[in-house]
């Protein structure tokens, strides 16, 4: 099967999932008591004023109508206006999605750079001191509260050493990268142990495979065996874990986004939920769904590239 057909089939499967996600998000969030008009007006306004605002916002229409309106517009990539920000959702989400994706991509990169060599070390020195040290340290990093790690990083690298800005986003590409570094490290420190564990486990498994012994019998060097033959076979398990985590990383970055004042999708989601900004919530759910589907699709695609057996 060609990769394109493979991609096509995956996408076709994804569409009903995405639709159901938006329906679910839409109906579920309406189950939760709360009224955006009341949240917006807070303590000041009378119930009549709230009612006027509800009509203005179209919140008095039946839910089904509201959802279908949303869906019709969404087909044209128009997600409507945010109830709170009083402006089109598309550009807001797009701008934030860029930062979120950049942040998570950067974090994944950092994790890979840390996790792959350490996993190799851990796997070939299995059950020796180096292995134990690596695993203990990464478990430590995993369990530390993220705002705590983040603040520690800021205190050290921004306040003390002045390497990076404390928060916010830089304008030039280089400054942008610099400003994303500490947040990416904070997320990366959480992700690294997850990747490291799965990679280590599958490395150990692959190292015991017969083709590794066959390669040794053929007199190949250990480095060649490890990097060419073993690593490629082992990456698949790690990619699966990565795929599952990507969606979670983007929405779960909210604490790190907060600490570093990065306008990402995570903080928008939390704000939208608290404010009952229904159109934003549904649009974001759709975006997260797309990101998760896309991430898993990429994972499948890299499977297919890494492992010819999957293509069948």
């Amino acid at each position, binding site marked *: 099967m060609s990769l394109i057909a493979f991609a096509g089939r995956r996408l076709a499967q994804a569409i009903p999932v995405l639709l159901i996600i938006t329906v679910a998000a839409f109906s579920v969030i309406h189950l939760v008591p709360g009224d955006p008009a009341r949240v917006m007006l807070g303590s000041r306004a009378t119930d009549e004023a709230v009612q006027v605002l509800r009509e203005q916002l179209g919140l008095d229409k039946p839910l089904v109508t509201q959802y279908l309106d949303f869906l019709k517009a969404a087909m044209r990539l128009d997600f409507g206006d945010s109830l709170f920000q009083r402006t089109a959702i598309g550009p807001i989400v797009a701008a934030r999605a860029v930062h979120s994706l950049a942040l998570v991509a950067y974090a994944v990169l950092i994790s890979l750079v840390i996790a792959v060599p350490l996993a190799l070390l851990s796997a070939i020195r299995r059950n020796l001191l180096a292995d134990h040290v690596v695993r203990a340290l990464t478990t430590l990093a995993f369990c530390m509260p993220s705002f705590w790690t983040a603040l520690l990083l800021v205190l050290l690298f921004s306040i003390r050493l002045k390497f990076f800005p404390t928060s916010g986003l830089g304008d030039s590409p280089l400054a942008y990268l610099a400003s994303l570094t500490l947040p990416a490290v904070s997320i990366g420190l959480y992700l690294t142990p997850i990747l490291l564990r799965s990679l280590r486990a599958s490395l150990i498994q692959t190292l015991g495979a017969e083709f590794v012994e066959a390669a040794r019998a053929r007199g190949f060097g250990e480095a060649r065996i490890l990097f060419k033959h073993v690593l490629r076979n082992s990456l698949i398990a790690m990619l699966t874990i990565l795929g599952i985590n990507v969606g979670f990383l983007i929405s779960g970055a909210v604490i790190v986004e907060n600490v570093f004042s990065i306008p990402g999708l995570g903080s928008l989601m*939390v704000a939208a939920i608290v404010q009952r900004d229904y159109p934003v919530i549904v649009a974001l*759910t759709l975006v997260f769904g797309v990101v998760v589907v896309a991430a898993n699709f990429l994972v499948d695609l890299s499977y297919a590239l890494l492992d010819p057996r999957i293509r069948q």
Partner: protein
Amino acid sequence: MRPFPPGIEEDAWLRLTKRARLDRRWATISLYAGIAIVAFIAGLSAAAPFLGLKDPTATDLMNALQPPSLAFPFGTDDLGRDIFARVVYAGRVDLVFGIVVTYVSLVIGLSIGAISGYFGGLIDTVIMRIVDLVISFPFIILILTIAAIVGPGLTGAYIGVIAVSWALYARLTRGEMLAIRRREFILNAETLGYSAPRVVFVHALPNLLRANLVFSMSDIVLNILTLAALSYLGLGVAPPTPEWGEMIAQGQKNLFNAWWISTLPGLVIVLAGIGFSLIGDGLADRLDESGR
């Protein structure tokens, strides 16, 4: 010990036996150290009422923000509560939550995943799409909804986390099931005419359980951390019940002037995390070898 038989180099043999002992010992040490750590925390928490600790919920504004001392081993928070007592009592909430959520999810996910992998076809497709759905649905919306329906507090957290984390076990189990689906012992069982439930839950179970059990150890940690994150958003336990994540969140604003409020409970989570992952590692080694 009798003399070495001829033809064996004594030092090489000793080196080997030492390595063998060490190898085995690491797996054992890992397992038992993990169990010891977890048992220590769990034991302390279970025995909390009998340890003569201070009341974990009693505020004492005169003694607020005391650094760690003999009177307050972990210091006090800004309401003057003894952090050590709170940490110990919090273990009751966190460990129980972590373990219950994990194993309920495991049982649900394992059953569903095994069915999905065993029968394949339409059942498999439908189940896996549901799993996709659950995994891609924004967790926080789910949690808020549940909190709104059942009221804020632990119940919502229990339901919410289980509602999501079974899906990971289902996916894991399905993969394992597919891997053993065509193996001889399954085919044999089928040839002998055993019913499908019997094949799935009796014959395949031990094989499916292995990966799930190993994963469950890190999942316990993950679930405790999830509860901590929920507390951060104010959706965790109902105050004043102490909970590790709630304590950490509480100390955030005091990080600069009273580091101990969030750092020490944080270290306890780290310790528990290390404990569970040591058990996981030891278990992985053991189950792995017995399967060899």
